[in-house]
């Protein structure tokens, strides 16, 4: 379902401030994607957690390369 990003703007801003100040290694897009997944799936916790897991797995695969 399309999601109006403006609706979670304040929420994202709070997370972005924390990320930028303390955890700059984490891309802001990842946090934004997790927030949107959680927002859209508040009525379906399983789906929310599956998407979150997949997003983090993808990020870690790109960030931590196998030797």
């Amino acid at each position, binding site marked *: *379902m399309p999601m109006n990003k403006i609706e979670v703007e304040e*929420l994202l801003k709070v997370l972005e401030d*924390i990320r930028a100040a303390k955890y700059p290694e984490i891309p802001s897009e990842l*946090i934004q994607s997790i*927030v949107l997944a959680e927002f859209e799936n508040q009525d379906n916790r399983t789906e*929310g957690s599956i998407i979150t897991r997949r997003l*983090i797995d993808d990020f870690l695969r790109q960030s931590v390369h196998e030797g």
Partner: protein
Amino acid sequence: MLRFISLTVEDFGPFKGSQTIDFTSDDGVTFIWGNNGRGKTTLLNIFRYAIYGKFQNRRGTNVNLTMLSNRESRSEGRYGFKVVLRMSYDGEIYELTRQFKLRTGVSRPTKNDDYEQTVYLKKGTAILSSEDTDHILKIIMPEQVARFFLFDGELLQEYEELLMEDSDTGAQIKKSIEEILGVPVLTNGATDTAAVLEAYTNAKTRTAQSNKQTEQLGSQIATLEAALQGHNAELERLREELTQELGRKSELESEQNQNEHVKALLAEMKALENSIAEKKARREGLLSDIKNTTKDAWKGLIGFRVNEILSDVEAEVKVLEDKENSQKVAQHFLKEMKEAASRKHCNLCDQDIDDALILKMEERIKALEGNYGGLTPEESGKLRTLQIRKATLETMRYPSSKERLEIYERQLAAVTVEISDDERKLKAVKEELEKHGDIEELSTSMQNCVKNLINCLKKIDNLKEGERQEAEQIANIRSSLATLNAKLDKTATGEDMVRARRRVELCEMIHNIFEEGIDAYRNNLKSRVEKDATDLFVRISNDPDYVRLEINDNYGLAIYHKDGGDPVPLRSAGFEHVVALALIGALHKNAPLRGPVIMDSPFGRLDPTHKENIIKVLPSLSEQVVLLAYTHEIDEQRARETLGSSLKKEYRLTRQTSFYTRIEPNQEVK
């Protein structure tokens, strides 16, 4: 944001046939006017029914849907009802249809099972699957936050519970506030990232176990992680059970309240029966007094004539008696004069009288004897007759019973009215009681309810204690794990361990962003809600010295006076409403979920200043505001002037019959 475009109701409640309310697509306010019994609250509940498929009465109890179809439509052979709500959300047009209709093959329903409920949602022109319908409805207006969108003014009072510690209602409202403000997005994010972190931590442990250098340490960590997993699962189970028990407690309390309500009704019925019996006895007494008074009433009726005759007789008697008395006095005086003349000495002045004066006295005595001759024998006879008549008439002067009868009749009328009032109240109480079923069975049910509630409260205590113990064990294991992991990180040098550790580090960072974000977002929200609620409150309040609101951890808002000091104590019901409206407005301003505000009769406890100020701020509460009000709840013309161009539409609920209300565009709109 969500916006309602139109609502069509068909044979629902008092709304017979198919009737539509069109809302404007512009920001602003819509008024729906309607007197008591015309269906304002039903209309509010129809919105709720459209979105959630439930219909609640004022006490929050779900109503049997079969009762909701229009009575006249039923008698015309149309059973069931339908609602179509058209709305826009995120640039898309949705049409939600919810229908309560007869099952195929049923033509004349006799039981609930003869009906079925259907729902479908169209997005544009496509009909969505039931899963997608369910999902979209939960996203655009979750039931947990409905209280901020669709509310009955009478229920605003419950917001004061937010200022109380350990209030179940307050806790529920707080949960709803956090829902509307989007806090669960973060808490769910924190939970899900924690699960991912745990998985990568376990992977790291498995890597450590597969490495000879760290095998032993890895096994210790694995053991602790397994224990941690077990405790986490147990904690989760306890929490779920606790949530269920709290829900059960809430249901039992609601049942208990219902029982209390029934008990109160029974007490009221008894009191009314006693009152009616006592008043009927009083009425009997009055009827008896009236009967007795009426017996002698004829005497009162001739009293006036008797008085007239008596008055004439008394006048005649007086003339004759005066004449008789004058003669007696004159006789006495003449006797004295004669004695003085014969003795030539006056006894009154003790002086001798000379002869010349004696002569004058004798002449005078002679003349006077002629003047005071007294009553003639006829007059004496007449006087005696008149005196007897007067005495007789005096016995007939019976006081009038008219005034006494009037008093009795007034008292009789008053007590008859009181009896009628009490009997009407008694009838209403009995009807209310009948809704609760067999009174005899209720007593057993009440006892069971109390027993179940006591057991439930005990179980909640045990679950809370179990939760506390599990949390303690989890904290201990986590502390041990942190120590072992630190040791492992120092010891492990292999490539795979470095990668595994890095993955865990990054996962921790992601999780921390969400975990730290929860408090930061809450604090951020609270200060914004506090500021926006204060802005609204100051605009609504009729007391210029109340200058700000202060938010607490539960989102309760305390009022502060310009002189500072403690918050304003013992707020009036009116101010509770004002604070609640300010909070709702502030929540809408700060919530990721935005939508229309539909409120029913929110002015009941407010003075004219508050009413007018609320009208002024209505457009600030939400982009779309629908106000259901009874005629004269607010000054209609003044409200129109106050809102100006912000007032977009007006409808009036007009009575056709007792069971048929028409929704008509208001003709008075200029």
